[in-house]
């Protein structure tokens, strides 16, 4: 389960769906509705952290509705960087959800905004956060090979 290759367009389509929903959380602002939607996003990221980006409901949407309409990918991608990105999303949204649940509702749109930046950069510009951070984490000794 730890290694394997996936269609690189899957995580990007997933990130597009995720960024739209996170934008809605920002629009909902400091509200219970925003907190509930952010909680849902956090659970999606939890799924992605445990099962990889291809194991989320967004991954299922890609596999079921998008991939059948596409040509086979030119190249496959290692599944670990997208999974790492899911973990970053989990961390950021969890902070917003926990603070929001304790009454600090202003944390909800802020956390959604931070996660939105990462998801949108991934979707639109193919920026892979895990790839950008990998060497920095290795250099600092936080992550081992």
């Amino acid at each position, binding site marked *: 389960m730890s290694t394997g290759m996936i269609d690189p367009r899957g995580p990007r389509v997933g990130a597009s769906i995720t960024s739209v929903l996170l934008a809605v959380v920002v629009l909902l602002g400091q509200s219970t509705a925003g907190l509930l939607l952010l909680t849902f996003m956090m659970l999606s990221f939890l799924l992605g952290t445990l099962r990889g980006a291809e194991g989320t409901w967004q991954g299922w949407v890609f596999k079921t509705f998008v991939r059948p309409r596409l040509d086979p990918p030119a190249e496959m991608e290692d599944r670990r960087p997208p999974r790492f990105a899911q973990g970053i999303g989990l961390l950021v949204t969890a902070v917003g959800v926990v603070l929001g649940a304790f009454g600090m509702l202003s944390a909800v749109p802020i956390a959604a905004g931070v996660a939105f930046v990462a998801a949108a950069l991934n979707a*639109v510009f193919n920026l892979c956060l895990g790839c950008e951070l990998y060497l920095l984490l290795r250099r600092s000794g936080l992550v081992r090979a």
Partner: protein
Amino acid sequence: MSVLIADGGLSGAAAQGIVGRMLGQVIALVVLVLGTAALGVWWSARQGAVRAPRETPAGIDWASAGIALAERVTFVQFSAEVCAACRSTSRVLGGLTGGAAGVGHREVLVDDHLDLVRSLGVLRTPTVLVVDGGGREVARMSGVVSDSQARQALNRVPAATGAEGEQR
């Protein structure tokens, strides 16, 4: 907004308050989207861009790190196992150096060369150092490298540099 219209009893001030808050959130989202777009454009423009060499300690012993330099110029590529941009960069540089005499391409994994990575100030993968025959860095690129960017980097190397190349 339909709530406001349906509830005629809502006072003007309260309605204004809600509209004002909603407006604030719309503005926040617009700023967020524009900021993200600017960040993305900046990041994309940097991918593979040929930059001046970094000040690195003189006398890096490439050979002892297992990196055999080519006669004229070598692309020393730092990669990570899972990095997709590293693979495409490797293909581009491999294709370019295959046909050129005295030009080499060496790809190393950052995990095997953490000391070198630290002393050279390499922060991300892929990072490509353009090293002349004398072992000096003449340019560097990071992020996915295109064929034209690699050629541009090659042009930075004076034609006659080698181990005993003449000074410019």
